[in-house]
Every structure is written in structure tokens, then in C-alpha cells.
């Protein structure tokens, strides 16, 4: 498997993520889609790292995973707080930050 197959998978995952973010209404699903985006980027990092024979990319990917975990924790915490307040996590109903 060459570099291209990795990139192709990465692109597919990324596109699924973007599609999910735009179309989904549930907060949890959107967060999951964001995870997909991050993971496609991580896959890219690892793929290029292996291709270039340079460990930096892999180290970077580890960082990125750690940060993604933290980000997910914050995101879910926000959603829990939101649910307690509004009894819903449907983002269509949460739109007070507007004109």
C-alpha cells in the first residue's frame, strides 16, 4: 500500500466528517464528526511520517490525539451542561447567539 491509499482513506473520513457536521442536528453527532476530522488529519500525519521516514509526524499525531481527548471531554461537558439547562441538545433549538 502506497501513500496514496492512506491519503484516500483520510480524504474519505474527512469528507464524512464535514458532511456530518453540516447535516446533523444532534450535538453529540457533531462532536463525533469533529473527532473524525481530527482522526483523518492524524492519519495524514502518520502516513507522511512513514513516507518521509521521519518520526516527527508520529510524535505530532500522539499530541494531537491527546488534545482531541481533552477537547472531546470539554465538548461533552458543555453538552451535558446544555442538556441540564435546556433539556435538549438539538442545535436547531439552541440559537440564542444571533441577531
Amino acid at each position, binding site marked *: 500500500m502506497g501513500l496514496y491509499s492512506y491519503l484516500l482513506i483520510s480524504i474519505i473520513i474527512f469528507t464524512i466528517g*464535514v458532511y456530518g*457536521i453540516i*447535516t446533523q442536528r444532534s450535538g453529540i453527532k*457533531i462532536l463525533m464528526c469533529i473527532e473524525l476530522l481530527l482522526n483523518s488529519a492524524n492519519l495524514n500525519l502518520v502516513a507522511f511520517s512513514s513516507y518521509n521516514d521521519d518520526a516527527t509526524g508520529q510524535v505530532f499525531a500522539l499530541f494531537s490525539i491527546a488534545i482531541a481527548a481533552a477537547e472531546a471531554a470539554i465538548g461533552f461537558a458543555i453538552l451535558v451542561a446544555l442538556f441540564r439547562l435546556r433539556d435538549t441538545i438539538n*442545535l436547531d433549538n439552541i*440559537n440564542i447567539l*444571533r*441577531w
Partner: protein
Amino acid sequence: MFKDYAALIVLLPVIAFVLTLFLGKKLYSGGALLPIAAIAGSFIISLGIFFEIYPDGIVQQSIPWFSSGISQMNMGILIDPLAIVMLLMVSFVSLLIHIYAVGYMSHDPAKSRYFAETSLFTAAMLSVILSDNILQFFISWEIVGVCSFLLIGFWYHKPSAAAAAKKAFLVTRIGDVLFLAGIVMLYVNLVKIINDPANAFEIGSGNFILQFKTMFEAIPLIDKTQLTYITLLFFGGAVGKSGQFPLHGWLPDAMEGPTTVSALIHAATMVTAGVYLVARTFPMFFNTPATIMTGVPDSLLIVAIFGGFTALFAATMGLVMNDIKRVLAYSTVSQLGYMMLALGTAGAVAGTQAVSCSIFHLISHAFFKALLFLCAGSVIHAVGTNDIREMGGLFNKMKITATTMFIGALALAGIGIPFIDIGTAGFFSKDLIIEKSFEFGEKTGGWGWIFYGFAILAALLTSIYIFRLWFMVFTGKPRSERHSHESPGVMTVPLMILAVFALLFGFLHTGFFGYVETNFELMGVEIAVHEGEVVHPPIIIVLLPVIVGVLGFLVSYVIYYKRMLDMSKIISSENPLYKLLYNRYYEPKIGADLIGVKLTHDVVAQSGEFIDRKIIDGLVIDTIISNTIFKISEIIRKLQTGVVQNYASITILGVALLLVLLKLKLGGI
């Protein structure tokens, strides 16, 4: 050795100011000890420097401050005879008044603020005195003005005090603007001179552009008309600060502050800054052309006119005031007029001697006027009112205050014995000024005699009003049921010390004149004094100041002690002259009501408000700018939908667009 610590003269009170301001409440007696110790330190250093430099040394220390183009500004210290005598006087009088204030302010809750402010004031005044350049002089001068504002409005919860503080600030500001304009004009002229190669004028190394030394050296090169304007603008500043006509109105109103403030600022030190300014820049005044009257430099003539007129003008108002402090305030204005008169007239007949003449009166006035004010404070402290009509018969209750105040009154009236040279401080200083104005009349003739008239008439009135005050306060029957008592020792001891100086300071006159006269020579400034033939005034002229002094005493004695004349006919609202004087020549009406309220507020401020509110705010901003922006933003704000997906789509779209653009720009696959 003291010379090296010259900067501490100013810095000690500044440090005391900071410490007292922040820590004063926690210290003994509201932190009074810190300023007292600091000012005592300043006094000791000044005294040490005096003994080191006497009789012909000066101290000059300068450091560069900032520079722009060819002009380097500096901060520095210049202690010459003129400065050292002022330093000694200010630090000494200030020290005594601070000690006195411990007693006088003992019941005030805001003692630490009081002592912090007076300490800063003293620092600023000392800095005015030992500035070696006009810029630093001006900065210190402004700090003095701020302190004056703060201290007049010390009891700011009283509306009258707040108004008086505001008035003092605004009126002196007029003078300050003129002074600043003078400095700017001087600077422009100096730069022009230095840039003109024809002059070959260079500032020596270690000297700076706005230093007094440089200014004096450049005098011959400055255009004569310009020099007149510059000096007159300087004099404008002095008029504001020293309460000369027509900017005198703030000084009597400034009596709203505590009496110690009146003694410190509005009698002994701050108001003399104006006189000191003219004395400091005297060579410039002296070298202005004589176009109005032969042999009399224009600027000096104008100084003399304002001074002489103010001396008489203020004395007339002093006659009718019923507030003990107001009488003294008008007396201060009048005596400051004398100092200006001395600079003007003696400058014309005796050159730089005028400076020693005027400063001698300044210092003797500082002693006896501080004494009079502190006595007044002692009386007010005891009876709790300022109105002399409610006092009377206090002599037996307050013997020390009464005696010291009588000495102060004698000194103010200039009582002494001619020919054998025994007399109070005022006898030597004021009579000399009167003699000089006589010589001026002799020299110029014609309407030059008017100055002698001013001086001698003012002397008569001075004597009348001060003894009227004394008789009304201390003799006769008590006119109100007030329990009064002598003040505590912390207040009476400074009175006694000042009384000793008021009595004996005059005997220093020979040494003083010899010393201060050399001032400008020591600075290396050549002033051509046209020595005329020495005028020996007739005996009657020598005697006349004392005669009018005694006459004034007798008049007051007859009217206010013996009560041989019924004053009620004269003192009535029917008498137009009394009304005019009592209403202070309608100065408050003209100054505050007409110029302040009618002209400034109703006309200028109101039309300004109209332009600002109706035209700029109303038409331009509201209708044009604000409305347009409002309409556009109405449309744009619709973009903020609050739906997360919209934001996400737009973000992704933006990134995609960016990639496409990047691709187009870079080319390749």
C-alpha cells in the same frame, strides 16, 4: 559639603509628602512630624549652603533632561544670593507654620492630607526658587498652583471653599498661560539667535538653552520689541500669582482655607513667587527699550504702574473688610504691590539694587505677615469666628497673641525711628521702597511722581487698617458671648519667634543689600547701571513714611479705641464710597458674575454647547453618520443566524476557496 546635598532641599519634603499621604493616618498627630522633620532638614541644608557660599559663591548643578534639535533642556539647581535668601526664608517660615499647624489643626479629621499637601507645596516652592532654568521654574510654579488649589479647597465640603479654590485656580491660570506664552516666545527667539551664524552665539558646554544664564547672555541679541513682549508676558504670570490688579480677586477669596494655609501660601511664600519671577529675570526687564518715559525701561515702568496701583487699590479695600483674614489678605495684595513697585521704580533709578530692595521687603513681609496671619489664626481658634465685629476685649485673655500681633502691626505699618536706624522690619524695607519711588519722581519728573503718591498714600492706609484691626479685636468690650482662651504653646512659640524676626530682621539691611546686589555679577551677567548723581531726599521725605505710619495709628486710636468719632454714619449702605469699597470695587461681580457666568458660561459655553449638541452631535453625527451606519448594519446583522451548521458550512467553504486560490496562484498539480 552641604552643596552636594542641594537637591535634598526639594527632595526631603517630596518624600515627606508621599509618606504622609499614604501612611499619615497611622502616624502620630496625623503624620505632622514627617513634614516638620523634612522641612527642618531643608532649612538646615540651606543654612549650611549659605555659610559655605557666603559671600561670593554660587552653586550650579545641572543634568541634561531631554533634547530636541539644537536645544537641550536640563534640570538643575542654581543657588545664588537671591535664591539662598529666599530658600532660608521659605524653609524657615514654612517650618514655623508647620509647627503651629500641629496645634491649629489638632481637631481636624483630615490632618494627614493637610500635612501631605503643605509638604508638597513647600517642596514645589523650594523648587521654584532653586530652578536654574525657566522650564523647571514653570513646572514647579504649576505644582505650587495645584497645591494652592488643594489647600484653599481643603474643607471642600463647604461650597464657598470649593468655589474659592476654583476661582484661585482659574484666575492664576490666566497668568500661567501668559507666562507659558512668554517662555515659548523666548525659546523661539533663542533658537533664532543660535541658528543665525552672524551672531556667533553659542551655548557653552554644560549650559543649556533655557537656563537663566543662557537667557541673560542672549539679551543683547534679542530683538528689543520682542524682549518687551517676553518680559510683559512673564509679568502677566507674576500678576496672576502675586495677586496684582486686575487678577487680585482670588487672593482674598483664598482665605476660605485653613488660616495656616493662608499664612503659608497666601502671605509668606507662594504669592511671592510672582515677585521672585520678576526679580529672577530682572536683567531682561532692565534691558527693554525706554520708549514711554526717558530713562525708564518700558517693562519696568509697567511693573511699577501695576504694582503702585495695586498697593493703593488693595489698601483701600483693607479699610472696610470685617473678616479678620480678608483684611490681612488685602494687606498682602497691597504689600506685593509694594514689591512690584520697588522692582519698577528702583530698577529705573538704581539698576539691580531694585532686586535686593524688593526681596528685602519680600522677606521682611514674609515674617510679619506670617506672624499676623498666625495671630489671626490664634484668635479665630480661640473665639471661633472670623468677624472682627464679634470680637473685642481679647487683650486680657490672649496676652501673647495680642502682643505679638501688635509687633506684627508695627512692622507692617513700618514704625521706627529715623536717623538712628532703629525700627521694625517694615521700617527698613518699606521706607526704602518709598524713598526709591521718590527718587524715581525726582529723576523723571512729571507724572513719574504718581508712584510716590501711590506709595505714601498706601502706607497711610496700611497703618490705619492694621491698627483698626488690632483695636477692634483686642480692645474695648467683648461684643459677643464667647468663651475664649490663649492658644497652646505649640502655637504661641512660633508666634514669638516670628515676632522676634519681625522686630529685628530690619537690622540686617546693610549686609543683606551688599550680598544680594552682587547676585547677577556672580552669574556673570553684565548689567550696565546708569549711576545718576546720588539723590539725597529732603528730611521731610525721609520722615514722611514714619509720620504717616504714626498718623494712621493715631487715626485708628481715636476712632476705634477712644470711639471719639461715630462711624455708623460713614459705615452705611447709603455712603457710595463705603459701598464701593465694601463690595470690593464690584470685582467679584465683574469677575465672577459678568466674566465668569454671563460671558464665559452664558455666551461662550452655551454657544459651544449649541454647536456641539445640535450641529455636531445632532446634525452630523446623528443624522448622517449614525443613521447610515445603523441602516447598513441592520442588513449585515442578519448574517448572524445563531445556527452552528451555517457557521461550519461557511468556514469550510472559506477554506475550500482559499485552497483553490492557492492552487491558482502556485500552479502545478
